[in-house]
């Protein structure tokens, strides 16, 4: 029984029994009028180009970390469809509030991937312009960005703007207090917000089965009175269609939506992780067979919009882009360590001034 007549019908909030999938693992498309796609051939090829680009730059980033050029890196391999399909559905005025694994989303928003990687090199907290790309600085602490998104969406609503906010988060983040607060706040105030959860099966080493007792993550939505959609996150078209619908729901003033994209992280949690300690090859093989990129490529080839020439060109462009990312990051100079103290307070405290002097002495190899 609902609290009052304005509460939604619970039946409208539950996810479908099976994840929404338009493109099956063999690349066969089954369209569904409830989840329209409306993409032309050029846009399909663009999706493909972005996915190939994400994969190549991702591999380059791992290599850069192994060469000591990045301190750490969190790979998105396997999650290209979830990231690029969802971000492709965004309107220009929408804002993305990412976690630390969203390079695919960043590419869709036109962020230079090298700018993003500076964070992992420790050269800059973020070199891209968040306002220009409507792509906020990446968030390392888990689920904090859900609150940022809810707050932004609330602001957009009060301003009468038609922008939506999207929080990109992982399955583990849904167990955090911040996620709960953001879900609840956004829903109570009908904030135009989509919580896009990439369920990649693991929060570092914790499997999703140990993360929640809810039937699925999308089922959690009903507790907040918002709809939960669940899609095959390795199906770029299904993810796009579901995200498109979620955004329309939010933009039309109906409040937030929780989208769960079921996917799999093919690489380690970060370059500092050893996944063989908690998952086995058989599991990896099962997911390799559901690879988002090869599935989409099969579909595009079948449709005749991608052939060997197109694939080769896309591959070469992506390789060149990866090379330029490498060139931008390789031995990029670090800032002045003394800047540590520059932006903490408008007027530095005596303690900070002392610390700054000590660091300066140490850097010059002299005694105080």
């Amino acid at each position, binding site marked *: 029984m609902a609290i009052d007549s304005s509460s939604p019908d619970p039946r409208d909030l539950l996810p479908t029994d099976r994840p929404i999938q338009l493109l099956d693992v063999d690349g066969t498309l089954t369209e569904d009028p409830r989840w329209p796609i409306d993409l032309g051939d050029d846009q399909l090829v663009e999706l493909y180009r972005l996915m190939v680009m994400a994969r190549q730059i991702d591999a380059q980033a791992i290599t850069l970390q192994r060469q000591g050029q990045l301190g750490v890196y969190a790979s998105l391999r396997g999650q290209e469809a979830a990231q690029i399909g969802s971000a492709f559905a965004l309107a220009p005025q929408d804002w993305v509030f990412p976690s630390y694994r969203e390079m695919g989303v960043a590419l869709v928003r036109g962020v230079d991937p090298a700018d993003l990687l500076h964070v992992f090199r420790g050269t800059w907290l973020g070199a891209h312009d968040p306002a220009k790309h409507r792509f906020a600085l990446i968030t390392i602490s888990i689920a904090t960005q859900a609150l940022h998104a809810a707050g932004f969406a609330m602001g957009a609503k009060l301003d009468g703007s038609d922008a939506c906010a999207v929080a990109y988060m992982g399955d583990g983040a849904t167990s955090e207090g911040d996620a709960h607060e953001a879900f609840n706040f956004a829903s109570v105030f009908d904030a135009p917000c989509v919580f896009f959860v990439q369920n990649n099966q693991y929060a570092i080493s914790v499997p999703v089965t140990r993360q929640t007792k809810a039937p699925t993550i999308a089922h959690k939505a009903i507790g907040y009175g918002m709809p939960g959609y669940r899609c095959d996150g390795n199906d770029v078209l299904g993810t796009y269609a579901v995200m498109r619908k979620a955004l329309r729901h939010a933009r039309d003033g109906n409040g937030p939506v929780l989208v769960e994209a079921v996917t799999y992280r093919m690489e380690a949690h970060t370059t*500092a*992780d050893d996944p063989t300690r908690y998952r086995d090859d058989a599991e990896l093989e099962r997911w390799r067979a559901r690879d988002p990129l090869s599935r989409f490529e099969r579909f595009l080839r079948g449709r005749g919009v991608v052939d060997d020439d197109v694939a080769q060109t896309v591959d070469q462009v992506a390789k060149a882009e990866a090379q330029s990312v490498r060139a931008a990051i390789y031995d990029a100079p670090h800032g002045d360590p003394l800047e540590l103290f520059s932006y903490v307070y408008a007027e530095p405290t005596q303690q900070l001034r002392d610390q700054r002097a000590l660091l300066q002495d*140490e850097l010059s190899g002299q*005694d105080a």
Partner: protein
Amino acid sequence: MPVEQVRLPDLGEGLTEATVVRWLVAVGEVIAEDQLVAEVETAKATVELPAPYAGTVAELHAGEGEEVAVGAPILSVEVGGHPAPVTDTEVGATAGSSVDRADDQATEAEGASGNVLVGYGTGGGRGRRRRARVRHGSTSPRDTRPRAKPPVRKLAKDLGVDLDVIEGSGPDGRITRDDVHAAAGASPTIEAGAAQAPPVRREAVTGVRARIADHLSIAWREIPAASCWVESDATALLAVRRELASAHPDVRLTPLALILRCCAVALGEVPRLNSSFDAAAREIVHHGRIDLGVATQTDRGLLVPVVRDAAALSVLELAAEVERLASLARANRLPPADLVGSTFTVSNFGAFGIDGGGPIINHPEAGILGVGRIASRPWVVDDAVVPRDVVGLSLSFDHRVCDGAEAAGFLRLLADLVERPTLLLAH
């Protein structure tokens, strides 16, 4: 043509060293940029190392199995034709500072690993980050380590000066460069002595070795252990093994599996040895289940995977489980959960051709059984000397938990079960 030194980067947030598992290239080989050149193992994971430069491999600075400090050269590449991404001076500057850091960190950790395992912990709380070493405004007396700045520590290390014996003349008792130089001048005998001594190699105790060292030190310090041993005629046990093995050819049935079964039964009869001494609470903790740790030698060192509820397993199940755990441990694939929580440990040192010994207890357990080799020996049966297959069984036990009589009772019972395996049918 210029030769570029490739230095080992920190491969995972706070690591201090890595071990070369395998070289994927050889000296003289032409390599491409980003080509994988080596497989290295850190405290976190085994990863492949890509070359930063294209060129010809000029030198491999470490052999397989050798450890390389973060910041130290791991290979040199003769960079031909193509300009290197970095100039020599830049490499020198960057690498030089990271070497300083590594050296300093080694000093700080004093031989222990400074590795930080994000997401896993360090398995002993020994993780250290590079932390601020300057305590501001403190006037507390020297507590854990002498106060000196990193460049001064480096200088002291280079000159062989022990900072612990120097009084600092700087602010807050900080040791200065002059203090170090003065100390170095005042003790020339140390330097002279060092010059004449034959070279020694110092090996950092890290990774699995460090965990073993810490764990055994605690056991040795804390547990007043006594040892006893007995020889047992295992001829009948081996006959049983042969019979079972021919009936179940699919299972690799080892004599150890049968001895583990005997051990589980004996522990059931003498449950006091399946306990732990909780010194803090002054309590003996009696475990409700027999979880047998089985010491297993791996490439990485000694690991002790745990067979859960061993008393509930048949000989065949025990054999299969030990085999499964041991192969996972050797492949470095064992989940950490399978390495903790044993209630009694068995060490099969007989596998190394040893008859007996005084094993160190796997803290905080009450006892450990050492199983010697099974060898044919002259044995007196019915007043005649005949060859029999004899096994040595050694027990170390925590004398706080039980007295000799009880421990001897356990070992004797175990020896009887080995000699007369039909008795196992009663259990």
